């Protein structure tokens, strides 16, 4: 018995070490790539020539798609703030996804809307559209409201795609706070490339506790809420280190549903958003990339690290749990739908790097961690815990997560430092030290439950999150 335990512990230790090494190597590489990409970006956009863009008649026209479900409290202000975005020619399509409150009535009343009889074509599947509204007021001539039967976020966005008139679409959450020049910055990858650009995404920033005036962030503050602060660190890691690096090797798999721009023709060709997954934003980009690859058309996906989109993140454990549970299911579903790409050299970077990364780092990591803890509990029960060994193992994991978070802080400092007070840096450091002990295990547990729910075929969660569309449940996953 004794020997068996030792062998077991030995094997487990080596496995642990090997896994840890792979993880660390991955992070080191991603830091390096991200550093190069960030430096390049900063050099590239050194010139302030947006004014020229604003006057150009040849800028591609953009359709902004903003799904809204029971948003009567803020919808008017949100739309007004969207109307003041700096861009020469764009339309705003607010998609009322069968709200049960007075969202539509409020919009009709405030913007003097009338029902416009127009033909539209169902390029991608979506539920029935009850009507498209336009404003009588010239000041709102680029505003359209699509009223439709409730069908969830993917369905709402698909309706928007069917009804909108321009070639570039920008999908946003209606409650996001966008910087004035957000569209100008996000369109740049489309203009700046000789290759075809199918999509471009931006960084999501945490808006909790920030001062917002007239739909603009006027002062960036660090939230007092620990959960929100932990997410700030998490978003630094995910966006500044993760996605920036993926962008460098052109292997980006996810553009946040909260803020992303797409080439409409390619979206339609791919079939639009998928109704059958809760991770519709990731699934769409993967499918678009896959189709381009299969058709052997050279293409690329852009990424813009400027802080352009600010969003409220969950502040309570419960909402955070639901969000992470859903993200996990979205990831697993997407990987499952596109399992053909995994380790498939004919998909290039996507097959050999991106999808395996998502499988090992995003899907398996919490599960492996969970089993590690189970194993520890098992040893504890049988009184086999060697506390020195435990302390050392714990030390290596803990020191690594702190190192990782500090690296993220470094990237924030290097890129577009938003938390300028030195006091903020110290509080973030303090958060980084607590995060692995409190926040991380909870997120891991949410992911485990997500896996279980998926395994048990629980669909009820989908409905719940649908109700929360654009409300508190924010998308911005790594």
């Amino acid at each position, binding site marked *: 018995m004794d020997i068996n335990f030792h062998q077991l512990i030995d094997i487990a230790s080596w496995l642990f070490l090997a896994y840890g090494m792979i993880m660390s190597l991955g992070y080191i590489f991603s830091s390096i790539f991200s550093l190069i990409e960030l430096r390049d970006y900063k050099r590239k956009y050194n010139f302030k020539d947006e004014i020229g863009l604003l006057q150009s008649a040849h800028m591609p026209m953009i359709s902004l798609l903003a799904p809204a479900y029971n948003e009567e409290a803020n919808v008017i202000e949100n739309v007004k703030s969207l109307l003041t975005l700096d861009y020469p020619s764009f339309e705003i399509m607010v998609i009322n996804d069968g709200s049960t409150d007075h969202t539509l009535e409020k919009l009709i009343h405030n913007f003097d809307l009338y029902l416009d009889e127009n033909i539209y074509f169902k390029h991608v599947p979506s539920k029935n559209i009850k009507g498209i509204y336009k404003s009588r007021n010239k000041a709102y001539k680029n505003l359209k409201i699509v009223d439709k039967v409730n069908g969830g976020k993917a369905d709402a966005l698909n309706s928007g795609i069917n009804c909108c008139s321009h070639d570039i679409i920008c999908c946003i959450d209606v409650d996001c706070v966008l910087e004035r020049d957000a569209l100008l910055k996000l369109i740049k990858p489309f203009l*700046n490339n000789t290759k075809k650009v199918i999509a471009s995404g931006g960084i999501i920033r945490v808006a909790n506790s920030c001062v917002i005036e007239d739909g603009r962030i006027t002062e960036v503050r660090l939230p007092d809420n620990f959960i929100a602060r932990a997410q700030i660190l998490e978003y630094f890691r995910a966006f500044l280190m993760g996605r920036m690096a993926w962008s460098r090797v052109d292997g980006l798999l996810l553009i946040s549903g909260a803020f992303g721009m797409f080439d409409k023709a390619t979206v339609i060709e791919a079939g639009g958003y998928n109704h*059958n997954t809760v991770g519709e934003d990731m699934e769409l980009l993967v499918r678009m990339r896959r189709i381009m690859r299969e058709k052997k058309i050279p293409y690329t996906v852009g990424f813009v690290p400027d802080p352009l989109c600010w969003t409220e993140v969950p502040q309570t454990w419960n909402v955070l749990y639901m969000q992470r549970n859903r993200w996990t299911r979205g990831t697993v579903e997407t990987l499952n739908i596109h399992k053909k790409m995994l380790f498939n050299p004919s998909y290039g970077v996507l097959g050999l790097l991106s999808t395996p990364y998502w499988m090992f780092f995003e899907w398996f990591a919490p599960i492996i961690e969970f089993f590690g803890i189970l194993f520890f509990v098992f040893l504890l029960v049988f009184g086999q815990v060697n506390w020195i060994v435990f302390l050392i193992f714990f030390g290596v994991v803990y020191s690594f997560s702190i190192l990782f978070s500090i690296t993220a802080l470094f990237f924030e400092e290097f890129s577009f430092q938003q938390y300028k007070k030195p006091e903020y840096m110290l509080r973030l450091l303090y958060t980084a030290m607590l995060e692995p002990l409190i926040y991380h295990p909870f997120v891991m547990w949410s992911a485990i439950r997500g896996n279980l729910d998926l395994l048990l075929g629980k669909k009820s969660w989908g409905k719940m999150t649908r109700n929360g569309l654009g409300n508190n449940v924010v998308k911005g996953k790594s």
Partner: protein
Amino acid sequence: MSILPQAFEDWTIILKINFILSVLFVTLALLLLGTVLYMRILKNRSEERKKTLEILLIDFVNNFLFDEEFDKSKNSVNFKNKHLKTPYDSKIAITQILLFNENLKGESSSLIKELFFGLGLYTFLLKDLKGNAWHKKARALFVFNKLSVEVPEPLVVSQLNSKREEARHQAILYFINSSENDPLSFLDKIDTPLTLWQQIGMENAMKAYSGEIPNFSKWLNHKQQSVVIFCIKMIVDHNQFENILSVQKLVNHPNARVRRQAIVSLRKMEIGEVLPVLIKNFPNEGPKIKQEILKNISKLGSEEELKMIAPHIHTKDRVLKIEYLKIARYFNPKLPKVKKTILKIYPPEMNKAKYY
């Protein structure tokens, strides 16, 4: 140190590795933290430096521009020696000068230029332009261009086909703005495609160009299709009706994108004469161009012409079909309404892509 090694000796290899790694991580974390704090302090300090220097600069420039008794050359040398010690200082000075240049015109413009030379900023940027870093080169060209300062031409020509889009962009703008009568002559030297971004920059530069606008048809046979497309757009923007015939010929160009731009531009210029050719070409064009042709017929043609292409719209081309019906109703409002026609057939790729 005396206790640890003893225990350390007894540990298994795996424990040793882990222990060393922990120590390594902690050290790295501390180092990195130091770097972050150091960067923070450095940034704050340079921000402060920037603020003080900006105030000094604004004062100095105002004196330079508006005080007639001010000894310009002597004070410039003094200011340069006293305040512009590092490249960072020079960069701040350049930014301020650009700001002045952007807001003031008339007699002040030439004074600003004089100041730019007086502070040694020309020499500073010329060094950048001769150096190796592409971003410095692009930045230097950007400034020279904004202030309309001339530099030796070979230095700019070499950037026209630079590997970096940004350097090419600035070189292009420089050539347009610095040329007296032939702003686009550089197009002959271009052998990389123009990005949309560059085209927009060129378009704006041409709008602001004070000399004679060239005849854009000169480059309609350029080997880069993006150059051809740009010139078609410019012919419309600058109303060069004398070039309509040349544009008309492009509807038979081998490249689809050129054909499409020609069709769009002819529509904008309201040239109906080319419709028979478009109708003849219709059956052989791709869906995108077909849609453009439909739009041309809708704007410039008649119901008869629309009917001529009807046989070539297949029932499976739903998007085209609906476009066709819309235009048919536009020509003849008595036709039955199609507003409730919501077609539910997705493109064939969809069925494959939908749910794997």
